[in-house]
């Protein structure tokens, strides 16, 4: 299957890039650590407050943080995409019979691997700090994180191809970044928010993942809110990937 071979080849190419320059993984690992050390202690006094009643404060905080790691690992990939557009790499490959889907998928898969490494590393180092991790719950949580990454990485790459210019990409990406994070309930649970904010949050994929992640971390797998997260993320992922592939097919870069 050409589509699989090509995806494999292009994944290897991007993975090799990461391995040669592991600094990016190290940087993405440092962000959650900064949150854990400089922000999580602020939450300690909130135990018992609405939304924090599930035991250790890290059980509320870490799942949200993992969602944000997944979200951010994909959102900013457009900048490297723009580099490749400007250097003619995408154009060169589009003149070969390479599968258009593979052009996208190779990159997204690399991001997925990077994210998984960071997320697992991070869940593990949070355990000594008091994070209670339910193994099976985490296994159900991982695909949600994966879909979040696939969505943002596809979106980021397609945006890079469409805009083709860092100065145009930066405001768009930042414009998506902040509201999604604030309305995900990652920093503080959305239960604390006024109703109108809670309503808006229901349009935010990160919100569903954060809510499901908090349940899954303590092993509550068969919960409607976990199902809702899947019901939201599966179609969103499919639609975004389809749209991004189309962009790669049509790009006039």
């Amino acid at each position, binding site marked *: 299957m050409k589509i699989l071979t090509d995806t494999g080849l292009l994944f290897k190419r991007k993975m090799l890039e990461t391995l040669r320059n592991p600094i990016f993984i190290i940087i993405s690992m440092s962000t959650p650590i900064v949150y854990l050390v400089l922000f999580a202690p602020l939450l300690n006094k909130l135990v018992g407050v609405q939304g924090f009643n599930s035991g250790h404060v890290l059980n509320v905080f870490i799942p949200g943080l993992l969602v944000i790691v997944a979200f951010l690992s994909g959102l900013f990939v457009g900048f490297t995409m723009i580099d490749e557009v400007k250097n*003619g790499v995408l154009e060169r490959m589009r003149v070969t019979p390479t599968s258009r889907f593979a052009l996208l998928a190779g990159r997204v898969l690399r991001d997925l691997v990077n994210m998984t490494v960071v997320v697992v590393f991070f869940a593990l180092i949070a355990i000594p700090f008091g994070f209670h991790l339910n193994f099976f719950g985490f296994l159900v949580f991982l695909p949600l994180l994966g879909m979040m990454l696939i969505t943002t990485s596809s979106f980021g790459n397609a945006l890079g191809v469409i805009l083709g210019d860092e100065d145009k990409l930066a405001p768009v990406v930042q414009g998506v970044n902040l509201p999604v994070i604030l309305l995900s309930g990652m920093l503080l649970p959305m239960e604390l928010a006024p109703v109108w904010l809670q309503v808006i949050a229901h349009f935010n994929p990160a919100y569903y993942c954060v809510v499901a992640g908090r349940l899954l971390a303590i092993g509550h797998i068969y919960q409607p809110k976990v199902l809702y997260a899947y019901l939201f993320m599966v179609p969103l992922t499919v639609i975004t990937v389809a749209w991004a592939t189309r962009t790669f097919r049509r790009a006039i870069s």
Partner: protein
Amino acid sequence: MPAEPVVLTEELKKHFPSKAGTVKAVDGVNLDVQPGEIFGFLGPNGAGKTTTLRMLTTLIPPDSGKALVAGFDVAREPDKVRLNIGYVGQNGGSDRPAKGRENLILQGRLYGMSTADARQRADELIRLLDLTEFADRIVHTYSGGQRRRLDVAIGLVNRPKVLFLDEPTTGLDPQNRVNLWTQINKLQSEGATIFLTTHYLDEADALSDRLAIMDHGKIVAEGTPEELKREVAHDCVTIGVSDWKESVPKLVETLGERDFVLDVTQEEERLKLCVRDFAAALPQLMRLLDERGVKLESVELSKTNLDDVFLKKTGYSLRDLTPEG
């Protein structure tokens, strides 16, 4: 050369919407490229060269008209076209964080070669384009000329029936330009067919067996560089004379009426005269100057170059648009 053309277009068109109305980027282009030749596509920036190239390389679909590349229709069989062409875009195409050799092997694999074949082909191209010295370094560290040679090698991986080069020497220093010209000629001698765009007159002149001049989306002239020059050209002479303010305008007027003169223009304080046959015209010119009592102060013979062709066909000089050319 009655062989089947490698590139053949009929009334190829591409229009883009813009704020000021439709831009006819490519407006009915007809051309044919024969196997084994270097075909030059000359025109200023914005003439529609790159848009034409993008259609021929399946990057964008034509609005109307027809284009056959390597015998396949670009609109209907883009996959077959892709298998049979090589393309080096204006920005190159080599992947900067990877090694040169890796770029070549990946390209081969994307064309469906086995790893062994792709490796072997990479070795061949590294030799052919003299990349040995730096093939195993990361492309980031390459000089502009080295990277350009790698770009060309990448375009050749699938042994294309025609190699498209879009402005191959833009941004290269003079030494690297000449070096690349040598490489391009070498490729041709090994049987490659090359379609290149350029806005450099000397490049089109030095490399192309045949060329087309494009302006405002249309082809305004086509032929071998010699044919094109012969068509416009004639022997021209630029003379400087004494008392030019008075004598040059008068001479322009008188000479304009003579049979042997094709064209006469005043170039600031000098006079440029183009004639069909210089040997026959010279005595008549001297006699006229004598009669008028005008003293000759300088004489400069000029050979026709492609800019004269360009000027004649488009009404403006390419040199004015591209100072570096």
